[in-house]
């Protein structure tokens, strides 16, 4: 600064000698940190080196790199951060041409404009930086203050912000209720579903206040029976839980079942700072499971019933069969009747079947053009329980008719008619005519015995046979009971023969 020196010297020589000496002495010993010089526009204050200490400290502590360059583009100052970023010592940076610090030359330096550049680092690497410049006046000397922001940090910040947004959108759209807990069990964030489940925004509440899980000795506590309600907040925030089935002490949620999971929420240092708790509603799944279990039990039971019936029929057919061929024919027919009933029940999902439909199905093999078979009666839905016995009875009567009765002759006719009274008692009449002359039977065949047993024990009804010479008339009376216990084996299969 040659101009300044000249002015200062002029001034000092003009001042009284002692004062001038004192001033020089003061400057020399660092007692002053600013001097007044004559600039082109009058007096000007120049702050001496050392006075900018606070600013230097500030620049040193900046998280960005900083450098001062003179008008020639030479680095006259660099902070520690810039040294770290470039992997070079401050002493190496000072005196360098600013442009040489970058791969591809100096970025454009304009006030208030941020330029992107690649800062050369040790080991031939580069670091993306955002460079901004601001003019600086040191007395009359013009310089430029440069700041360099590490763009990788900036990118990390963007990535963190994106991750945060991503996590937030997961919370918003999750179909499960998700709550992020602090270590004290207070809900810090909650998914939209969690708020919906509690019917209010739950952030800020203790987890157990928002979602009162059943614990301890309560009826549905399950795995949580080991814990007290008070301890649950801390437990959920600190201990992992995996798919624990839970229910809640809340009128709104009393009949709903949830799967509870909790896992630690880790920070960047991988230490737990809380937990993420998920409540997945499994009420429907649970109900389906229960239904399935029930159906499997029911199926087992029915298979057992059918086997019992088949065993019973086989046993009794054997006792009455004259030959192996006769056994074969009779047994297959009877099993066929059971199969028809079973088919119908399966088709109607064991709800039951119309009486007409059942009778028509069983009689179908016996229909022929020259046989008049009429089926008459009001529509009646037979409960599942009555289907198989009635199918067997109709089959027995039809077999009998085709062997000895109306259906054994070309012009025989058969009328099946039923009525139901106010007490829901069904009276079914089977009337044959046009067959061979009928006489009183000499003994009771198995067919008759089977009908008797089935009507009496399975349908809890009565059975009457009238052997008129023109044709037999069989009258069955049985109550239409829908509430017969499905767990009981059919009486005809369990009663002594």
């Amino acid at each position, binding site marked *: 600064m040659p101009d300044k020196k000249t002015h*200062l010297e002029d*001034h*000092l020589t003009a*001042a009284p000698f002692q*004062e001038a000496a*004192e*001033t020089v002495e*003061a*400057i020399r010993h660092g*007692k*002053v*940190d*600013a*001097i*007044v010089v004559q600039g082109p526009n*009058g*007096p*000007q*204050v120049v*702050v001496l080196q*050392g*006075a900018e*200490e*606070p600013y230097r400290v500030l620049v040193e502590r900046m998280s960005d790199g900083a450098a001062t360059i003179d008008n020639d583009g030479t680095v006259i100052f660099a902070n520690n951060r810039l040294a770290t970023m470039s992997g070079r010592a401050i002493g190496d940076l000072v005196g360098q041409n600013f442009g040489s610090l970058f791969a591809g030359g100096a970025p454009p330096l304009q006030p208030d404009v941020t330029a992107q550049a690649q800062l050369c680092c040790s080991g031939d690497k580069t670091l993306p930086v955002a460079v901004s410049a601001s003019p600086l006046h040191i007395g009359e000397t013009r310089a430029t203050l440069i700041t360099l922001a590490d763009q990788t940090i900036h990118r990390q910040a963007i990535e963190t912000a994106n991750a945060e947004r991503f996590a937030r959108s997961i919370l918003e759209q999750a179909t499960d209720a998700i709550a992020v807990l602090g270590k004290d069990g207070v809900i810090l964030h909650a998914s939209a579903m969690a708020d919906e489940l509690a019917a209010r925004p739950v952030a800020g509440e203790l987890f157990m206040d928002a979602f009162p899980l059943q614990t301890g000795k309560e009826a549905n506590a399950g795995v949580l029976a080991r814990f007290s309600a008070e301890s649950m907040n801390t437990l959920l925030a600190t201990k992992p839980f995996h798919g624990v089935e839970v229910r809640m002490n809340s009128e709104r949620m009393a009949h709903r079942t949830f799967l509870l999971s909790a896992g630690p929420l880790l920070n960047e240092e991988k230490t737990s700072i809380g937990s993420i708790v998920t409540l997945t509603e499994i009420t429907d799944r649970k109900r389906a499971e229960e239904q399935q279990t029930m159906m499997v039990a029911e199926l087992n039971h029915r298979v057992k019933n059918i086997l019992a019936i088949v065993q019973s029929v086989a046993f009794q057919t054997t006792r009455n069969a004259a030959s192996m061929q006769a056994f074969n024919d009779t047994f297959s027919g009877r099993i066929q009747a059971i199969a028809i009933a079973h088919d119908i029940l399966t088709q109607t999902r064991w709800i039951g079947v119309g009486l007409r439909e059942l009778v028509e199905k069983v009689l179908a093999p016996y229909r022929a053009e020259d046989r008049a078979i009429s089926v008459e009666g009001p529509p009646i839905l037979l409960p599942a329980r009555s289907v198989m016995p009635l199918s067997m009875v109709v089959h027995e009567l039809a077999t009998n008719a085709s062997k000895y009765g109306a259906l054994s002759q070309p012009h025989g006719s058969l009328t099946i008619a039923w009525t139901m009274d106010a007490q829901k008692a069904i009276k079914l009449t089977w009337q044959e005519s046009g067959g061979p002359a009928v006489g009183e039977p000499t003994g009771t065949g198995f067919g008759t015995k089977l009908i008797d047993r089935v009507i009496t024990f399975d349908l809890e009804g009565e059975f009457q046979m009238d052997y008129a010479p023109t044709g037999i008339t069989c009258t069955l009376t049985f109550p239409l009971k829908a509430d017969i216990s499905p767990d009981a084996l059919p009486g005809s299969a369990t009663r002594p023969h």
Partner: protein
Amino acid sequence: MTEQDGYNLRLYVAGQTPKSLNAIANLKKLCEKHLTGRYTIEVIDLMKDPALAQRDQIVAIPTLIRQLPEPLKRIIGDLSNAEKVLVGLDIAPT
């Protein structure tokens, strides 16, 4: 305070440089101790108005000017050496 025994002091500083701040603090302390009730201080920031330097022909900052009592005296520095300041301003230590 009479004009005869009153001290009228003018301190020239340059913004908030460390020595300027020290000088203000030291002067106030010293005056309170030795000139209680007998002084006025005018602080002039030459950063704000450098032209004011011409009035007392200020070259180095901080500089203290004793305007009254006469004669005008000048002390350069941050006034950290209290003894020297007292001598320079002709104040008898109390």
